């Protein structure tokens, strides 16, 4: 395997991905990511110098509209699926001490 994924990398990616992996999952993730990256490295065979990265297949333009409010107060609907709510607000764990 050409791509060796270190413990540090998995820790770092776990922070970016907001995932907490068990030791077993971490070992599996190291293996999986290594083999996926080996596979993705195949793209290195292609000379892409001078090729613009294509994010959209059509020439899309930004879609503008007038800055006018069209929706009403939708608070009740928005909160309907909240795991926890109080007085019309989402409840989150304490963020500052």
């Amino acid at each position, binding site marked *: 395997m050409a791509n060796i994924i270190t413990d540090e990398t*998995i820790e770092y990616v776990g922070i970016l991905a907001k995932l*907490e992996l068990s030791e077993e999952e971490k070992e599996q993730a190291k293996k999986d990511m290594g083999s996926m990256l080996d596979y993705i490295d195949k793209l290195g065979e292609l000379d892409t110098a001078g090729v613009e*990265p*294509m994010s959209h297949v059509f020439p*899309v333009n930004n879609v503008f509209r007038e800055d006018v409010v069209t929706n009403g107060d939708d608070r009740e609907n928005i909160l309907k699926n909240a795991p926890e709510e109080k007085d019309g607000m989402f409840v989150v*764990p304490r963020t500052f001490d």
Partner: protein
Amino acid sequence: MSILDMTAVELAAAIKNKEVTVKEATLAVLEQIEKKESAYHCYVTVDKEGALKKAQEVQEKIDAGELTGPLAGVPVAIKDNMCTEGLLTTCSSRILGNFVPTFSSEAVLNLEKAGAVILGKTNMDEFAMGSTTETSAFGETKNPWNPEHVPGGSSGGSAAAVAANECFYALGSDTGGSIRQPASFCGVVGLKPTYGTVSRYGLIAYGSSLDQIGPLCKDVTDCATIMEVIASHDLKDSTSVEREDTDFTSALVDDVKGMKIGIPRDYFGEGLDPEVKAAVLKAAQQLKEKGAIVEEFDLSLVEYAIPTYYTIAAAEASSNLERFDGIKYGYRTEDYNGLHNMYKKSRSEGFGAEVKRRIMLGSFVLSSGYYDAYYLKALRVKALIKKAFDEAFAKYDVILGPVAPTTAPKLGDSLSDPIKMYLGDIYTISVNLAGLPGLSIPCGVDSKGLPIGLQLIGDCFMEKKLIQTAYAYEKARGAFGRKEEN
């Protein structure tokens, strides 16, 4: 003919002619669901009560002459990644296990306006990540042709439900082959439209630049008819394209004289099952006999499509799935210590292994230091792949090939080796990268008794050429399908 064996268009006509009521059709299909679900498990949620209530409403509108369209009164199944107001929408994930949307996706609204009766939500690979429907948090769906085999994925529940007469047609979504491949494995017709044709509003995003909603159905006539209903320009989806050529049923013409069909040699190499190859080439021969001009050519870059796709799709998935944080909706862990721990635990407990694998990969390829080498590189290769298709479509109206290298694998055979599973997407994936339409239609059965799919690929906005070619092929092929016991 029994109600259940009718196509969607046939049923709507029978309802219009007062030969069948909407309630009779709905009850017949609900009874079939009750009989078959323990064997196939096509659905995550069946909304019996809602369907019967809707059937009554739709019947009244048909009787009053308010609903006259070609799908009015026909019961439909919706993949569980499309929001349906008031009806559980899980994406087959634990993290959305209790999510009841307060709005419906645009494609579903378009169907409802046309008089559809929604039966329920179909099983899928979790967040549409997978090719077998085995990554669903709610158990696997089985292939009605042989329940020891997978139905394909990720729209496996939709494809199996159509094959098992557990609905008259279904909606699926296709990010790398997720409509066409299960359609192929279950012996039904599936279409992934040109990117931007069907609004993605209310479709729970996986890879936003690749996702498209499309139909899974019994024949090409249904396919064109459903497309006419669901295609729409939607300001709520900024990638929605304004098209005036959405009269897809006008292409239901049994004529391929002069149609230029290209067969990419690169789609017939190593890894392709000989029985699949023979069936697909036989279909090409039948089209040739009807007057199509069939030629082989080299498409090139085929082996680069999968690594390009997995880089881009994983990157977009890692970003799209950031919204699942245990605050606004969905699952929240029981015990946690502070905000960040709550995020991490909710996500880790809520997502399954394949979803985590792709989020991790996506986070990595987007991280500083690797963004250029992986993500931008993949976007550059995507441009080359698009160019290869542009060159092919300068010469051909339609590209013809297999949908997948094999017929449906056995349950449990695919998940052990992710890369092997990803290789099964080799013929479908580049279509999404290039934004093209692709159609899957059954073209035979292998010696194991499993259906084989033919794929037709068109240039952007050329669905009508696909529909015309598929329709002409369907006429030459004749009736297809196993007889589902109703």
